[in-house]
């Protein structure tokens, strides 16, 4: 989401916001990775975790060139690199660097430890063949991406059982920044995946348009009506609530609050609900998708993009859903190419994101000219569209175009290896996102008196309407379409 959108007043944007920082870090990582196409391998030291039974053998450098580092060395190198880059980044955002560095160290340790636990064979092994390979008689079958769930749960425990510790970490709890960097990196990964099947990729892209129509024109209108007519909310509450449930969560609620000149507390309270419900969705929907939609992987992927609110939760849930669905398919002897489901989820989410500015302008125009008409009040200006445009999307498009151009130019396996190294960082930013979302999710807010009515609208709209309509639309446009098979 755009940093302007995250400011209720949205009048003065900082010189470098989270979106700009995400683009710089994401594009920078990709450029360093791509150097290996023509010269030395600059990122091969990044740490990666294999499914393990012997913890000493779990960690390692992503490239064999750096095998000498060992797992601990790769982990230390990755931590130091992230610490330096992100500390410089948050300094540019105007944050307190020392507090960030200390908090980030703890966040990184806990988040990566969660990932490590999630890669334990008893958690991650999926098929009987995997179980036999690792010598385990049972497993939770969460795939190695079950580490995301572990990170989320650890974050939830901290937020709800140790809130003071959660507060102490807050300088490094930046899920929006982490997921935006991950999405920028995802552009190149999706491009390399799509290059092999361009016709399929472009067809899927066109289907993403349906998501925009659904989120802005169907969901928003219905949720606004429910909030106003059935629950008796004022316009000031109903509009941010409708955007929070319908579009992309926190940023949409805050952009709408700014557009209709709501008091800042209104979208902030709505946003706290958005995060809580997004976490509930992340914990439930991927497993429902695996159980009921594993025969329709791309329906499942689009559904997650339409149903889960906030970019972080949606794209991260897309990653879990892909690993769960692909694991189930693999157990049945079907080997789908990885990346396609995540590409569909991300495309749906990014398509929805890019129209936030337009929607905020439309609402601002209606509110300032027809609802809150004041002779001296400032009218909506078209420049708000750009001010609220999520700039990190430009980074996503840039890495996608660069990756596609190189793939179509015949860069081949070397490109796949280079993008794979960049993707290692994408996974780490996903882990940080999951942990951060958990730490920000205080379930006690649902019991806060007064918020129950807001939660009721959210609950009714999300579970009574949004996820089902999302499922129907996803089915309508993606049923019968399967990701390409491996090989």
């Amino acid at each position, binding site marked *: 989401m755009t940093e302007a959108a995250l400011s209720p007043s949205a009048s003065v944007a900082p010189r470098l916001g989270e979106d700009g920082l995400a683009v710089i870090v994401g594009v920078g990582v990709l450029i360093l990775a791509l150097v290996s196409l023509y010269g030395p391998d600059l990122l091969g030291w990044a740490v990666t975790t294999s499914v393990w039974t012997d913890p000493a053998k779990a960690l390692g450098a992503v490239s064999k060139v750096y095998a000498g580092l060992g797992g601990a060395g790769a982990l230390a190198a990755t931590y130091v690199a992230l610490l330096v880059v992100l500390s410089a980044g948050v300094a540019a955002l105007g944050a307190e660097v020392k507090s960030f560095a200390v908090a980030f160290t703890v966040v990184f340790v806990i988040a990566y430890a969660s990932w490590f636990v999630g890669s334990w064979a008893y958690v991650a092994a999926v098929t009987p063949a995997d179980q036999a390979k690792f010598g385990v008689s049972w497993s939770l079958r969460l795939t190695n991406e079950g580490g995301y769930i572990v990170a989320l749960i650890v974050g939830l425990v901290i937020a709800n059982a140790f809130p003071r510790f959660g507060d102490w970490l807050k300088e490094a709890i930046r899920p929006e920044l982490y997921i935006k960097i991950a999405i920028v990196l995802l552009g190149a990964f999706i491009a390399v995946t799509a290059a092999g099947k361009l*016709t*399929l990729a472009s*067809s*899927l892209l*066109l*289907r993403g*348009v*349906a998501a925009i*129509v*659904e989120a*802005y*024109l*169907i969901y*928003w*209108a*219905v949720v*606004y*009506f429910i909030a*106003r*007519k059935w629950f*008796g*909310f*004022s*316009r000031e*509450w109903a509009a941010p609530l409708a955007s929070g449930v319908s579009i992309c969560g926190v940023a949409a609620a805050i952009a709408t609050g700014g557009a209709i000149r709501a008091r800042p*507390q209104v979208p902030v*309270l709505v946003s706290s609900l958005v995060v809580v419900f997004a976490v509930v969705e992340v914990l439930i929907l991927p497993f429902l998708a695996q159980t009921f939609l594993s025969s329709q992987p791309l329906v499942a992927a689009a559904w997650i993009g339409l149903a889960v609110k906030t970019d972080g939760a949606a794209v991260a849930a897309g990653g879990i859903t892909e690993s769960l669905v692909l694991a189930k398919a693999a157990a049945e002897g079907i080997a789908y190419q990885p990346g396609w489901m995540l590409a569909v989820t991300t495309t749906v989410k990014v398509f929805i994101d890019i129209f936030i500015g337009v929607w905020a302008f439309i609402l601002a125009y*209606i509110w300032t000219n*027809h*609802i809150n008409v004041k002779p001296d009040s400032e009218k909506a200006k078209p420049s708000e569209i750009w001010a609220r445009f999520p700039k990190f999307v430009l980074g996503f498009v840039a890495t996608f175009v660069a990756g596609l151009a190189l793939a179509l130019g015949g860069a081949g396996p070397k490109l796949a290896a280079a993008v794979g190294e960049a993707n290692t960082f994408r996974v780490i930013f996903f882990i940080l996102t999951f942990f951060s979302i958990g730490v920000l999710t205080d379930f006690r807010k649902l019991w*806060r*008196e*007064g*918020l129950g*009515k*807001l939660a009721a609208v959210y609950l009714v709209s999300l579970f009574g309407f949004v996820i089902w309509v999302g499922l129907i*639309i996803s089915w*309508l*446009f*993606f049923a019968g*379409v399967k990701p390409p098979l491996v090989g």
Partner: protein
Amino acid sequence: MSEQELRKELKEPAEPLLPIEKKLIGWSLGIGVVLLVLLAVINHFLPIS
């Protein structure tokens, strides 16, 4: 905003829907449904290959 203020505010009598709000809801839904039907038709005649 304190809990009491929030509770009091959320219990205030509902504001009736203005004609412009009805128009916004109606036009959104109308255009949305038409566009979805159009996209579904395109999807039918140009299936994903």
